[in-house]
């Protein structure tokens, strides 16, 4: 699959939702824990060597699972291969909790569901479609039917 690395590099320089130095271990057997600067930007998680400006890699966070591992540690895996885990070690339980919550919310699909939920709730309470004022009520991405796809 072709993609433009420069696009991703530029994205990795955007303001991050969260950024911290964490211990990170890749999914391959025998991977070693390494210190990485981990940066959450929109629905991507970038990871950098601590002294480098360009990321080593990126993880698209759609359809990922964020699971607690040992205390202070969590893993990210993906729905098509849940045993293939990216491990992260935090410096405190609090930091771990913070990251897990942020990562669970960091997907476009999560936002889509939230939006549809709110739209529906507002319709129930007020009887009106809140998206009409923006002229986007017919957009495909906001339709309830999208959830049944």
């Amino acid at each position, binding site marked *: 699959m072709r993609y433009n690395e420069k696009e991703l590099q530029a994205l990795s320089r955007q303001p991050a939702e969260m950024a911290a130095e964490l211990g990170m271990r890749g999914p391959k057997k025998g991977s070693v824990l390494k210190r990485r600067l981990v940066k959450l930007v929109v629905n991507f998680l970038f990871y950098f060597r601590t002294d480098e400006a360009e990321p080593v890699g990126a993880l698209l966070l759609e359809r990922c699972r964020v699971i607690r591992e040992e205390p202070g540690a969590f893993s990210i895996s993906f729905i098509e*291969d849940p045993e293939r885990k990216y491990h992260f070690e935090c410096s405190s339980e609090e930091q771990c909790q913070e990251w897990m919550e942020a990562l669970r919310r960091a997907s476009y*699909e999560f936002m889509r569901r939230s939006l549809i939920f709110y739209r529906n709730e507002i319709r129930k309470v007020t009887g009106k479609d809140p998206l009409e004022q923006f002229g986007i009520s017919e957009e495909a991405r906001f339709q309830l039917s999208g959830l049944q796809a």
Partner: protein
Amino acid sequence: MKLNERSVAHYALSDSPADHTGFLRTWGGPGTPSTPSGTGRRCWFVLKGNLLFSFESREGRAPLSLVVLEGCTVELAEAPVPEEFAFAICFDAPGVRPHLLAAEGPAAQEAWVKALSRASFGYMRLVVRELESQLQDARQSLALQCRSSWKSVAGRCKPQAPNHRSVGLENGHSLSKDSSPVGLVEEGGSRSSGRGLAEWELQGPASLLLGRGQSPVSPETSCFSTLHDWYGQEIMELRQCWQQRAQRNQPKCEEQDKP
């Protein structure tokens, strides 16, 4: 730069909703000449969220390319002659060439430009936040109306939060099934503990507005959805008490069991 390509491709092919699809002619992408020429290549494009994928055909089993739609604008373009209905995805970042694309007609061109312009994560986030605050306002005014008849409302309220059902525990999908939009939530009656309920719910849409350190337990909280959850918990506990009392005084108090 490494990318979790297998997962990305899986997402592209998954049954998660596509925001726009259609055939487009494309000239862009690495490995192609820097000045677009010729009629381009006709591919099947799928827009999901802020990701634009192309496939060789509608039945393509692997995406050919990915464009991440962040930090870009979409503009009508002058296509290489004789191509019409062209538009370009232009990036702010230096050194990133615009992606030139052409639709098959004016309606398709307009639809694509609109869809791509609204594809960014930031745009979606803005709309969600706006709706979140609108819902909060709507519920607050409703709550004010209900406050006077609190006892009767409490009697009728079900100790569950069906609204949060639509937000799965997992990141955008439920544990049970790939295609199910419903998160892993049992109905109120089978919930094991009130504590677990509050914790889980805070991970739902309510958490977007919940500030750090804001206690959900205080009735002074300004976020109505957490206030709603707090009262819901109290109702659940009350209901348990009523049920226990009803079991002890069975013949007299059966009607108290009715929600």
